[in-house]
Structures are given as structure tokens and as C-alpha cells.
């Protein structure tokens, strides 16, 4: 067992850290540490400029093959990049959906034409993407997609009718990839297509969803005849589910250590406040702070196991518990932060409802155990896929 990264990887780490140090000052200083989960609506234009700055430095899409402008970086190097990026206070990546979801999907399933049309602008930090999966009737049951894709012979285009929901950054993006039903008679996983759709067009209406935090990061996206070209279907009509599921496996945990670095910053803040306000002297809170520390370190070693596993695309046991583990940990941290703050947790100090980071953390982490597969769905997946227990019966079959 080898816990340390290789000297070559450590050298790569130094290179990343020093580039970030040099470029995150000056004009980008105000956006350090901004734009992460719960804060995604802030500094959007500045963060798009930052994406272009990253791109010029060769730091976007580092895991892509060199042929498409990437560095062909190893899993370890991608992990290191994400970790250093978070350590340096790099702002929330507005280009991450294009880089980590659209790009790998096109590399695996896209036509040469699709790759040539879309990959360079993602790599250059010029085109931003969002994800059109969830719908009002397709949340945990994602295959219950109702949005229709109809072929318009006259226009030689696919036209879309329906609604997506929980679409992060839709109003700031240029494109959306859409999972839509190509065969109206089909149900479930069958008869779906995966489409690449420009957002700036007639027939698309984007409406923000106001959240309990008083902010709005998510949107509803309504389709009423919006179109994409015949060559913007990835794979064949009917392949959509296969493409959509493969997409969810591409990320392979490379961002987990970066995510944990952000968690560490939050935990450090809780520890700092606990020492200052005396909460650190209270035995019950000491127990919970220690538990939070142990939990975060556990996430780290879960990740290292996951990243050291066989790279055959299959999900290992430690990979299957990861979402349930981090979301539960983070939600508990939000509550711990409130308890450490004590009475002050309740006081909103500015604006009509401008929350401080820990208040925002507390409220927004309630979403963590819901999006990307609720904790209940995660437990079903663990029970069925890792433990071999019987699958849930469907009510409609």
C-alpha cells in the first residue's frame, strides 16, 4: 500500500500550485473561493473570464486526450489538480459540466463532426454547458422522461417539447444536453435520445427557482419547439439511456479530493469559531467536532481506495457508498456549524436576507442528500448492486 503520490506527481502538484498562485491574484482576487455550491450565481462573468484564463494556461480539460487539447493527465494528476485548485481557493468552475460531462461523452460516443464542432470551444473556455436530465416527473425515477424529441422533416431538425428542472446555470450557459423521448410509444429506458441543444433560441424559456437560502442557482427550462440539427443527436435515437448512464460514470471520483478540500475549509472555520466562542469547551460539541474531523478523513481514504481501484469502469464497494457518505457528512457539518454558533446562528446581519457562509451551508446542505440521487435511492443502489438484495418492484409494470 502506498499512500503517497509519486515524485513526478508531486512535481505536477507544484506546477499546478504555482500557476494558480500566480494567476489567482490581481483581477481574479475578488473571486477566490466564490461560486461554489450554494454560491453559483455570483461573479458569473468574472468566472467565465477566469475559465478563459485557465484555458490559455492549458488548465482546462486536462484529462482529455492531447488530440483535443487536453494533457492526457492521469487520474492521479486530475485528482491533484482538483485538490490544488480547491486549496488555492479557485472559484467554482463554470465550465465543469462541459469539461467533465459533455466532453467525455462526445469523446466516447460522439461523431467526428460533433467532436470537431463542440470540443474546441469547451477546451477554450468559450462555450458553457448545462445538464438537461431531471424533469418534474423524472427525479429519482430518471427514466420516466416525458420531454419529447420530434423529427421535423421540413426543417431537418429535432424539435423539443416538455420541461427540464433543477438545471444549474441554465441562464448562464450556451448549450444544454437533453435526454428526451424519441419514441413516444416507448417507456422507461427505451426510446430515449441524447441531444446537444443551443439555448439561445426561440422555444426555450428559462425560469429561476427561488430556494430556501433566498438565492436561485437552479432553473426550470421549458421547451416549446426549440430545435437542434439532425447531427446533434449523440449515437442513435434509442441510445439515450446508455449514453446518459455512461456520462454519470466518467467523472470517476477525480473531483472528490478537491471537494473534500472545500469541506476542510468549512470545518476549519467551524473549529476556529468553536475555539473563539467557547463551544470547544463543551463536551458534547467536542465529540461532534471530533466526529466531523474523523468523518472527513474517512471520506479521503474512501476516495483514495476508490481512485486506486481497478480502472475498469465498474463501481467498487467504496465508490458506491461515496455519495451517501459525503452528503450525510456535509449535512451534519451544516447542523454542527449552527450548534457551534449558538444563538448567533439565527441572526441575519445584512441585506434583507444575506446569509453568512455557515448559515448558507446549513440550509444548502439539505440539498446534498437529495440531488444526484437521494440518500434513499443511494441506499437502494447499495443494497441492490453492492449487496445483491432484491430490486424494488416498479408500480407501473
Amino acid at each position: 500500500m502506498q499512500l503517497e503520490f509519486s515524485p513526478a506527481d508531486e512535481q505536477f502538484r507544484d506546477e499546478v500550485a504555482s500557476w494558480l498562485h500566480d494567476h489567482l491574484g490581481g483581477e481574479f482576487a475578488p473571486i477566490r473561493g466564490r461560486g461554489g455550491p450554494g454560491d453559483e450565481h455570483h461573479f458569473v462573468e468574472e468566472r467565465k473570464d477566469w475559465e478563459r484564463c485557465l484555458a490559455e494556461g492549458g488548465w482546462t480539460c486536462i484529462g482529455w486526450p492531447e488530440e483535443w487539447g487536453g494533457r492526457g493527465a492521469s487520474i492521479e494528476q486530475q485528482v491533484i489538480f482538483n485538490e490544488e485548485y480547491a486549496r488555492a481557493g479557485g472559484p467554482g468552475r463554470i465550465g465543469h459540466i462541459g469539461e467533465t460531462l459533455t466532453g467525455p461523452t462526445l469523446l466516447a460516443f460522439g461523431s467526428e463532426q460533433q467532436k470537431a464542432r463542440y470540443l474546441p470551444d469547451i477546451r477554450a473556455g468559450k462555450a458553457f454547458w448545462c445538464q438537461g436530465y431531471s424533469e418534474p416527473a423524472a427525479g429519482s425515477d430518471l427514466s420516466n422522461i416525458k420531454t419529447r424529441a420530434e423529427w421535423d422533416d421540413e426543417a431537418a431538425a429535432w424539435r423539443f417539447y416538455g420541461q427540464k428542472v433543477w438545471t444549474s446555470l441554465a441562464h448562464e450557459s450556451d448549450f444544454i444536453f437533453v435526454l428526451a423521448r424519441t419514441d413516444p410509444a416507448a417507456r422507461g429506458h427505451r426510446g430515449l435520445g441524447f441531444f446537444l441543444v443551443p439555448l439561445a433560441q426561440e422555444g426555450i424559456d428559462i425560469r429561476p427557482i427561488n430556494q430556501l437560502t433566498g438565492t436561485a442557482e437552479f432553473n426550470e427550462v421549458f421547451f416549446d419547439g426549440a430545435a437542434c440539427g439532425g447531427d446533434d443527436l449523440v449515437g442513435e435515437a434509442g441510445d439515450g439511456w446508455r449514453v446518459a448512464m455512461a456520462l454519470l460514470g466518467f467523472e470517476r471520483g477525480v473531483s472528490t479530493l478537491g471537494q473534500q478540500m472545500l469541506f476542510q475549509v468549512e470545518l476549519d472555520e467551524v473549529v476556529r469559531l468553536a475555539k473563539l466562542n467557547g463551544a470547544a469547551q463543551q463536551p458534547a460539541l467536542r465529540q461532534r467536532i471530533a466526529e466531523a474531523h474523523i468523518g472527513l478523513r474517512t471520506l479521503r481514504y474512501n476516495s483514495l481506495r476508490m481512485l486506486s481501484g481497478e480502472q475498469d469502469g465498474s463501481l467498487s464497494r467504496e465508490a458506491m457508498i461515496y455519495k451517501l457518505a459525503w452528503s450525510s457528512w456535509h449535512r451534519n457539518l451544516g447542523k454542527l456549524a449552527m450548534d457551534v454558533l449558538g444563538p448567533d446562528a439565527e441572526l441575519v446581519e445584512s441585506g434583507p436576507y444575506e446569509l453568512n457562509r455557515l448559515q448558507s451551508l446549513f440550509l444548502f446542505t439539505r440539498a446534498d442528500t437529495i440531488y444526484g440521487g437521494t440518500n434513499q435511492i443511494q441506499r437502494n443502489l447499495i443494497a441492490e448492486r453492492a449487496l445483491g438484495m432484491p430490486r424494488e418492484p416498479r408500480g407501473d409494470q
Partner: protein
Amino acid sequence: MRFRFTDEQRMLQESAERFLLEHSPPAVARAAATAPAGLDLPLWQQVTSTLGWQALAVPEEQDGLGLGVVELAVLLEQAGTRLSPIPLYASAISTLALRATPHSPTRDHVLQSIASGAIVSLAHTSARPHWDDRGVDITARQTEGVWRLNGSARFVSSGAAAAHLLVVARMDTAIGLFAVPADHAGVSIQHQVTLDQTRSMANVTLSDVTLEREAALALDWGQGLSTTLDLARVLVAAEQVGCAQQALDLTLEYVAQRVQFGRTIASFQAVKHKAADMMLKVESARSLMLYAACTADAWLREAIDDTALREAAAMVASSAGDAAFFVTGSGIQLHGGVGITEEYDIQLYFKRARALESYLGRPDESRETIARLLLDEPASEGSTRAA
């Protein structure tokens, strides 16, 4: 970075798993509960003569294999899986205690006897109620060129079958470590029946045990005791992970065949979700246990300091202790009525988890150790308000 077993470690794991599956079924653990020393000594004889586990971490100069804590953890996890009544833990912790002791002919001799299969047990505490140096009740006084040891120790693993004891004793101002032959005049060792039943424990009483000067392995062993206990926590965690994993596996087997309301109870979401939570705890404890084992090896190589070892040990003691208790307790619940019968094995794992949870300190005490490391330094500069 390659946080997974090497091929050699994987082979060791597989061979241990195969051997214990064949030679250490639950009946063996049950039978040992009423055996004289609470051990299956013929089984241990077979282990030492054919597999050599007792010599795994003994340095090569003392006829061992010179391997480390990761390898010991591999074996202890498997022993925990089968509740194997063999003195593997006693052997492992005695080896590590000696590795943390300066070279001397006595030390090398005891290590050699461990490698040759003799049982050596660490007698370190009365645990009234503390497991650390505050619990050391045996005293050692030097008079006329010899040492005289008096007092008692409890929770001496596999002590009733030991050939040698490593006795931790309080001197005037320091803590010492002594090698004491089990048959030495004044040494009395009694097997202790425990709630757990399957992990051999003994009480040791020393009455004017008189030892030559060479019996003293270390005379300033306070920090040695502290780090040895941290290494011990890592070994215990490996047992806990094995115990928890097997409790989960037994439970999955049971719920898959138990039919109620016309379906297996494994098909109920309430059962599936409990099982998922059990697996989450087992895998989380396993991740920390592997980290702690690597950390212990780094400490043995002198690559990290005592504090890093302490942190790792406290983290895994908290995590694996809670995990094993939760998983085995949930296992009983999911077994339903048969879970509380003597016949079903899940109760054995529950009892083992209970025993290990408080052995060397409860999980909350380990969390307090972490809290001291995190919270008892003054805060850095900054606002008392949340940013």
C-alpha cells in the same frame, strides 16, 4: 499513490481466508469458550508450524519475516471474521511492543521465541478504569541488584496460555517493561471468563516476583507504552472490521432466505436500507483502518511522529468501534427472534463487538483524544463572527 493491497498482501489475505474458513468454523470459536485457556491451541500449533503468522512482524534478525502492521491487519481482520480462538493478537502486539524497545539480548530472545511459536502476552494494565499508564498497577522496585515486581494486571490477551509475559510496571518516576517467564515463582495467571466468551483474557498477579537485571527491557517506557497502545488500537480495528463484515454477511444470508408476507425479508426497503447503512459503516471503518495500518508502518519506519500515529489510532478506534457495534447490533435486529438465540452465530459477533468497543478505550474517549488535538490549541486570529 496506490492505496490498495500489493499482490503479496492480497495473497496473504486469500490464504488466511482459505485456511480459517476451513479450520476455524464457528464451532471452533464456540468450543474454545469452554476450553482451559479460552484458546484452540492445536489450531495455533497448526498456524505456527504451517503458516508462520506468529513470525510475520518479527524482525528478520530474530528469525521473523520483518513485515509490518498492514500485513498484521490483514491477518487480524480474517481472524476477526472467524472469531478464531488463536493468540494472534497477543503475538502481534507483543511483537510490536518489542520492536519499540531498545536492542538487548532479552528482547531479541523473546522475539525469537515469538517467532518460534511461543505465546507472549502483554500485561499492561488493571484498567481501573484507564487503559493508559494511569491504569498500571504493577510496581517494580530494584533492591540488591534485582527487580521485585508486585501487583496485578487484567485483560491480558491469551495470558493463560502464555510462555512469557511482557509486564508493564510502575517504578519510582517512570514506567518500565519487563520480560517475565510465565512459570516464574510468584507469577499467577488465571483465565477470566468474559461476556464475549470467544476472545481469551486472563488476570495476572505478581507476588514478589524477583527478576535479574537483564529482565528489564526498558526503564523509561512511558512513551513506549503510549505508542504501543496506539499500535494495538490499529490491530483491534482490523479485528473489528472483520467482525463487522462477517456480521453483515451473515445477516445478508439470513434475510435472503427468511420469508414473511410471501416474500424474502431482504426485499423490504426497511431491511435493505439498514443493510446499506451497515455496509457504509463497514467500508468507512475499513478505509480508516487501512490508513491507520499504513500510518503505523510509517511510524515504525520513523517517517512520522507520535502525534500522527495517535491521531490515526484514535480515529480508527472511534470509527471501527462504532461500526462493529452498530453492524452487529443491527445484525441481531434483522435476524429477528433467532438473533437472540444461542444457536445463531450473530450473537457471538455482537458480543465480540461489545468487548472490542471498550477494549483500550471507548469510541467517545478516542473522540476526546481527537478533540484535544484539534481544539486545545488557541484559535488563530480572526473574527468571532462566521464569515
